């Protein structure tokens, strides 16, 4: 009696399982189509499905009432929590500029510190709206990691820092030595590339975040530490004795750093990109947060008027208010102001402008025309 009951029940379960599986596959298609808002039909061809969502990010950000920006919290001058608990640095100021462009309020931004390892996942999953965390522009990140780099905000190169009394003057002197590096970075890959092409045998000591990397270096776990030169300069300021460390005169790679957004929302990409260009254009035209009001009232040059929203509808084309450019410069400043605030001569993290000057001054900064 009991046996037959069991068999019957087993059969029942089995049939239900089959039914459930069949059901799942038919209902399974549904959630994909019932997403939100306007969806462009997706061609289901190839391994990578083209994502949809033009305009979704801006809508989400506006509905939420603030921008969530993934930043660094450990690199002074770029993204750092200062003694008062405020975020500072040029990457952080970029987030403020973006918030100013969207809301007309530079404080409507929530900074979310992300590690090098988790940053792309955070961006992909929508946990952050934009990643502004001294992230190097590279092909893999632009494609496979599902992101788009908007513009370069800082042209950097990878460097190597050693203790001044170590007698190490070149990469060749590091043969047989140990190098501290942070995981999940292009730095880690460049180091392996450069050392193998020079035929230098070394041991890597790889850490999860900048703090532990430099803590290990400070304890002399390694003979040298490598990261972007800007990162070396800024981290040197927080070592016990900054003068006891020198940065070798070698550049191991190109490191264009800039904000990154998710694939699939071109409107958001445009906004993020033109926020950078607006800051650079501001410097080109000599508009600063101090003089922007007077420039605005007396402007005659058409391009300046378009940037400040006096002529045309540039802001509306981006899906923003027409005074977006004015807000960026008024509330945050032009590129030069932002740079000097974090990396200028008056700061402990002083880095000469170098490549990060306007093209008119021998640098690489160049904003496309606002028209």
């Amino acid at each position, binding site marked *: 009696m009991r046996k037959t009951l069991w068999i019957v029940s087993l059969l029942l379960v089995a049939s239900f399982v089959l039914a*459930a*599986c069949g059901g799942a596959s038919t209902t399974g298609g549904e959630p994909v189509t019932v997403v939100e808002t306007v969806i462009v039909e997706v061609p289901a061809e190839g391994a990578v499905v083209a994502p949809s969502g033009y305009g979704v990010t801006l809508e989400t950000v506006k509905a939420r009432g603030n921008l969530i920006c993934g930043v660094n919290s450990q690199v002074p001058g770029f993204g750092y929590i200062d003694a008062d608990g405020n975020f500072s640095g040029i990457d952080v100021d970029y987030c403020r500029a973006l918030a100013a462009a969207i809301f007309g309020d530079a404080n409507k931004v929530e900074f979310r510190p992300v590690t090098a390892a988790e940053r792309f996942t955070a961006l992909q999953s929508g946990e952050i709206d934009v990643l502004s965390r001294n992230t190097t522009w590279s092909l893999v990140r632009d494609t496979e990691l599902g992101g788009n780099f908007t513009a370069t905000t800082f042209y950097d190169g990878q460097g190597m820092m050693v203790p001044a009394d170590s007698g190490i003057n070149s990469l060749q002197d590091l043969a047989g030595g140990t190098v501290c590096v942070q995981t*999940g*970075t292009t730095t880690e890959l460049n180091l392996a590339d450069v050392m193998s092409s020079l035929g230098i045998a070394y041991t890597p*000591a*790889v850490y999860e975040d900048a703090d532990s990397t430099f803590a290990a270096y400070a304890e002399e*776990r390694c003979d040298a530490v490598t990261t972007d030169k800007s990162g070396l300069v800024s981290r040197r300021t927080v070592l016990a004795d900054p003068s006891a460390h020198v940065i070798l005169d070698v550049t191991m790679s190109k490191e264009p750093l800039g904000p990154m957004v998710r694939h699939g929302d071109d409107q958001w990409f445009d906004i993020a990109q033109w926020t950078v260009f607006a800051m650079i254009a501001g410097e080109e035209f000599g508009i600063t947060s101090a003089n922007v009001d007077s420039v605005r009232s007396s402007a005659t040059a058409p391009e300046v008027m378009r940037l400040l929203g006096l002529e045309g509808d540039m802001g509306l084309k981006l899906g923003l208010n027409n005074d977006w450019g004015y807000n960026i410069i008024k509330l945050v400043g032009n590129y030069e102001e932002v740079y000097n605030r974090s990396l200028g001569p008056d700061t402990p993290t002083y880095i000469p402008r170098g490549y990060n000057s306007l093209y008119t001054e021998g640098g690489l900064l160049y904003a496309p025309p606002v028209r």
Partner: protein
Amino acid sequence: MQESAKQKATIPFWRDERILNILGQVVFIIGLLFIGSLIYQNMKAGLARQGISLSLNFLKGISGFDIAETLLPYSRTSSYWRAFQIGLLNTLSVSIVGVIASTVFGVILGVARLSTSFLINRLAAFYLELIRNLSLLVFLIFWYLGVFLKLPRVKEAVIWPGSIFLTNRGVGIPWGLPTDSYQTFRLILIVGLILAVGVFFLFQSYSKRTGRAPLTTLWTLLTFVIVGVVGWFILPEKPLTFDAPVIEGLNMTGGKVLSPEFMALTSGLVLYTSAFIGEVVRSGILSVSKGQVEASRALGLNGFQTLRLIVFPQALRVIIPPLTSQYLNLIKNSSLAIAVGYPDLFYISNAIQNQSGRAVEMFSLVMITYLMFSLITSVFMNWYNRRIKLVER
């Protein structure tokens, strides 16, 4: 039979407890499957929206990064899969060293905790209470930053007798370098092992037949050692030459250098887990009734014999299940390696995930791997537990 048929006729099926029971289970399983498929569909839809497709093909790609500690040949041109294997082996080596060492320490601690000597007893109790109430992560970071990185710099290395070098780049110990005759020596060792096993069974059958207790363990070990030693000397060339570490250039070379990361991770894990194992051992020993000890003392066995022959075999039955979970804890806790920069499974998977952007795949792989580790460990421990169970008649 007739009665139940009558009952069946009188009780409607929605009040029949047996049917309701089964129906409840069926409904539960369907619910479970439904939720599972919902979660899976949700994940798939979310990934599709972000243009991410799931595939393990990326594992064939070139990793591009270097790894400090590798048990297999590896370079920056190796595949992600090879990097994953290296992480796996590193986790395994930490786990094996950890499980063995923490068992030894744990047993010593457990016995010391029950010692009649006031000093030993109190010291063990203090140690157990201190360590068990620390956070493992804090403990590991203490060992790394506070102990192993605070050792002298390479140029000022402290050298212990026996060519043991203590530096903040690692602990250098002499290590055997295989020579040409090493292959033959290995064969000899295998022969020795087979002989030893033979001796073991011979003695066991002898003891069963006669009821006497020969020194089985001693003779088994002696057989192996004698074969090994004889083999070592009859070979024309010594199978291993001892290579002591030396300071050369920026680092130590030669010998075996145990990195500070490895040392910090294993010592942290071992000291931490052994404290818990100590408590497990103590509870096991206390579970053996006092009469057993008194009886064995009355028979004239000394303290050590009582422990080895009477107390431990009985205590083991109580010890094994919680001991298994301590082993599992140790294996899983080894993923904290990432805090001290030791390239274990989780750490390397993290690096792979970063460089390839394949978070879902890597996390699934890591979870499955840890699950496998744990399941294999508990299958083995359960088998052992059954083997030593009290045979009841």
